[in-house]
């Protein structure tokens, strides 16, 4: 029987380690899942890595991990069985070297959960096994067990946002600055907010999706309600490529809605959403197509934590995809 839900049981940790949930992670090997889009926002990886190291946790990345391949499945370029096989290949490697895997990207998190879910279907697991049989013959080498579906892996998954919320007391202790009552528009991202792989299993672990609102309040910020708070960033798998005008209209509406209520910046726990919301070329196109120039800064939660912890600007804020006025926000937060 394949164990399909590999999410870490947050509720159980809170119950067992109610004094200090960080204790649960102290003797665990942690691994950061490498999201492709962190290449544009290195501060997303560094932000969580630096924090974990400061908290004396054992943290690393997995050299043998590939892209989660969710983007190829969503674009009809690979089948469910191929997607599941890529997923299982990554899972085998992660299971070898980690007890807990942390995800900075909603898409990757969703992919790893979805890949396991697909294996519940006999047809998909059979085809995935056939792919692995082929792999054993062609590239199996000395480790044919690498190409097996793991029935009950030990490794467990947690999204960075859920993790940061869980260890919020220790997180707050590590902060040097606060948000000085800045107005913050929160964007959770669809594949966090709508995560409903198995409504009866995963949802209770995630519980109310207000963790980012709560964290921003704890950081001394003021989360603002805006009309498009729960709407998509506009990425929409292939939408930015095949229907760019329509996709960017969604992005525009979201940013405009946040600007209208006076948000100083927007924060998200996903680098893919951040890419869509912040890319200078997209901002230019939106201005050209829809008339309004939007200059609301956008930032990933991990980058924001680095700023609040007093890290150097280069370590916090993305160097390659800077959004308008992000330095302004950096300066306001880091003023003594």
């Amino acid at each position: 029987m394949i164990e399909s839900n590999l999410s870490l049981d947050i509720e159980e940790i809170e119950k067992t380690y109610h004094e200090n949930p960080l204790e649960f992670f102290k003797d665990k090997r942690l691994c950061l899942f490498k999201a492709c889009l962190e290449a544009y926002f290195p501060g997303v990886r560094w932000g969580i890595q630096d924090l974990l190291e400061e908290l004396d946790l054992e943290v690393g990345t997995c050299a043998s991990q590939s892209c989660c391949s969710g983007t190829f499945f969503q674009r009809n370029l690979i089948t469910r069985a191929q997607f599941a096989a890529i997923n299982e290949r990554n899972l085998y490697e992660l299971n070898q070297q980690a007890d807990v895997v942390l995800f900075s990207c909603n898409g990757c998190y969703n992919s790893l959960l979805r890949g396991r879910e697909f294996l519940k279907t006999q047809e998909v697991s059979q085809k995935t096994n056939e792919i692995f049989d082929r792999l054993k013959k062609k590239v199996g080498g000395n480790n044919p067990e690498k190409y097996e579906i793991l029935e009950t892996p030990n490794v467990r998954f947690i999204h960075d946002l859920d993790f940061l919320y869980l260890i919020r007391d220790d997180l707050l202790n590590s902060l040097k600055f606060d948000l000085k009552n800045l107005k913050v528009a929160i964007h959770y991202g669809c594949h966090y907010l709508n995560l409903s792989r198995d409504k009866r299993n995963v949802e209770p672990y995630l519980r109310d999706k207000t963790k980012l609102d709560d964290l921003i309040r704890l950081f001394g910020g003021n989360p603002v309600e805006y009309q498009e708070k729960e709407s998509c960033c506009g990425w929409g798998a292939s939408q930015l490529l095949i229907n760019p005008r329509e996709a960017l209209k969604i992005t525009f509406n979201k940013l405009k809605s946040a600007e209208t209520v006076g948000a100083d910046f927007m924060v998200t726990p996903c680098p893919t959403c951040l890419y869509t919301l912040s890319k200078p070329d997209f901002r230019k196109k939106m201005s050209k197509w829809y008339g309004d120039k939007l200059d609301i800064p956008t930032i990933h939660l991990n980058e924001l934590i680095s700023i609040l912890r007093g890290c150097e600007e280069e370590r916090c804020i993305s160097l390659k995809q800077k959004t308008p006025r992000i330095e302004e926000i950096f300066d306001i937060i880091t003023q003594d």
Partner: protein
Amino acid sequence: MDVNSNSNWNWDFYEELVDDVEDNKNIIQCISCGKCVGDCPAAKISNFNIRKIIGKVLRGDKSVLKDSDIWYCFLCERCKRVCPKDNINIPLLIINLRNESFKKGFGPRYNDLRKYVEMSERFLTSGVVVEEPLGGPLFQERVEELNEICNFARIKYVFKASDTNKNRNKRKKKP
């Protein structure tokens, strides 16, 4: 409003889709409440209407494969979250319909695989989708595994069209 009755239902298309992806059998539970449409980002900027699409599938109306509508879905999964039924997987249905549309060669604007050449090429040569991944690409010997997994997939056909692959083949031909 679309009205389904026994007289205008045709199960052939539905059965084909269920044969392909078993989860699709659950769309029969749809009660046409429209919650999925009300909360859908694509419905705000296009004619994408999942309730109508499900209706067409249940009536055996294959014109849905030719419509541009199915290509507007953002796969955001909001419909799956708000659906009052537990097991209707709309995003998976859309991916399945797009797959059928691909196979039949409909909708050239949407099926233009050239748009995916770069990302496919990066994945099959370095295991990631960006040019300079943080921490470096996947080891070459492990990339071979991905290539093997993706055999006969659409991504392979896209990759074959890429410049890198053409140059590789040219290099191989040299004595």
